[in-house]
């Protein structure tokens, strides 16, 4: 049931995306949003999930947002946020991550991040993980993130 719904959802999205790109192919191609300083935290042994951090820059004049993420390295990729609220640390999925016009979105420890669930291979320091981010205008950003072991702070 869930699977069927998800499939339907994906199909609808794809259809919407195709329709959109058919109408405004230039808009999708002209996106100048870029990424840098991507990295993935090496998960603990046998842990099947980890987080990816990256800085997304939008030098353009239109506000954009990241609405989806996917990767061959994980079964599911989600947009998440960590919030400090009344002394509590809360982790919750978010629908989109805003990248303001002429600004940036900083995905970093303690804040916004990309969660990789169901890792297919245990990532270790030195590996690279490729993630594709989809923007609200249908454009995609390819992110190549080195895996880093963060064992101790200086």
């Amino acid at each position, binding site marked *: 049931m869930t699977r069927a719904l998800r499939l339907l959802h994906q199909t609808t999205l794809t259809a919407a995306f195709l329709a959109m790109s058919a109408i405004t192919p230039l808009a999708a191609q002209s996106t100048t949003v870029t990424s840098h300083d991507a990295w993935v935290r090496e998960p603990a042994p046998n*842990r099947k999930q980890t987080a990816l951090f990256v800085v997304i820059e939008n030098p353009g004049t239109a506000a954009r947002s990241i609405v989806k993420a996917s990767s061959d390295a994980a079964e599911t990729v989600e947009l998440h946020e960590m919030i*400090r609220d009344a002394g509590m640390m809360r982790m919750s999925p978010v629908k989109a991550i805003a990248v303001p016009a002429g600004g940036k979105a900083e995905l970093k420890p*303690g804040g916004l991040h990309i969660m990789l669930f169901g890792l297919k291979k245990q990532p270790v320091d030195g590996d690279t993980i490729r993630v594709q981010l989809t923007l609200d205008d249908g454009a995609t950003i390819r992110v190549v993130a080195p895996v880093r072991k*963060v064992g101790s702070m200086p």
Partner: protein
Amino acid sequence: MTRTVPRSSRLLASMAMVLTVATGCGGSSSDGPPVLPIGGDFVLTDHSGQRFESTSLRGKVVLVFFGYSFCPDFCPTTLSKLAAVTRRLGDAAPGIKTLYITVDPERDTPAVLKDDLANFKLDALGLTGSRAALDSVVNRFGARYEIVPTPESVAKYTVSHTTSVYVLDRRGRVRFELPYESSVEEILMSVSTLLKERP
């Protein structure tokens, strides 16, 4: 599904702490940091599946924090800070012990906690137990957590939790409650202060 440790106990603890500070009757005989009216001894299960009694750590300065392994951020960040503290202590490092107490016993079996600690160079125990036993410890430290269902995520649920690091003296009494933002230097200073006290 949502489970919250009663706020009243935390409030009482805070009030008692204010009174303690105001009257100067913290239980500490010297000018050192006051004894906070939280904490107390407990029995849980360590990451090797063995029974753990907090009284076994008398004579050591103990760092306690609550977390859960599914969160890939807070726990590694705190553990990496404490590993740095350990490194900076050098020869004095054997005088401290870290206790990482889970608030997610369904997912955090002893084996999971053991893996969680594997990447960090510090003398630490991951602790779990029954929900009731963990709630009792959480309560007594004035900590809080809340299980938040997230049906839209494959995580199914996340656990919101307080992020203080409690520093216990050699007699098992809580002397510092350090916020998450504390730097390695600040933690080091608290630990060093307590290491200088006589056991």
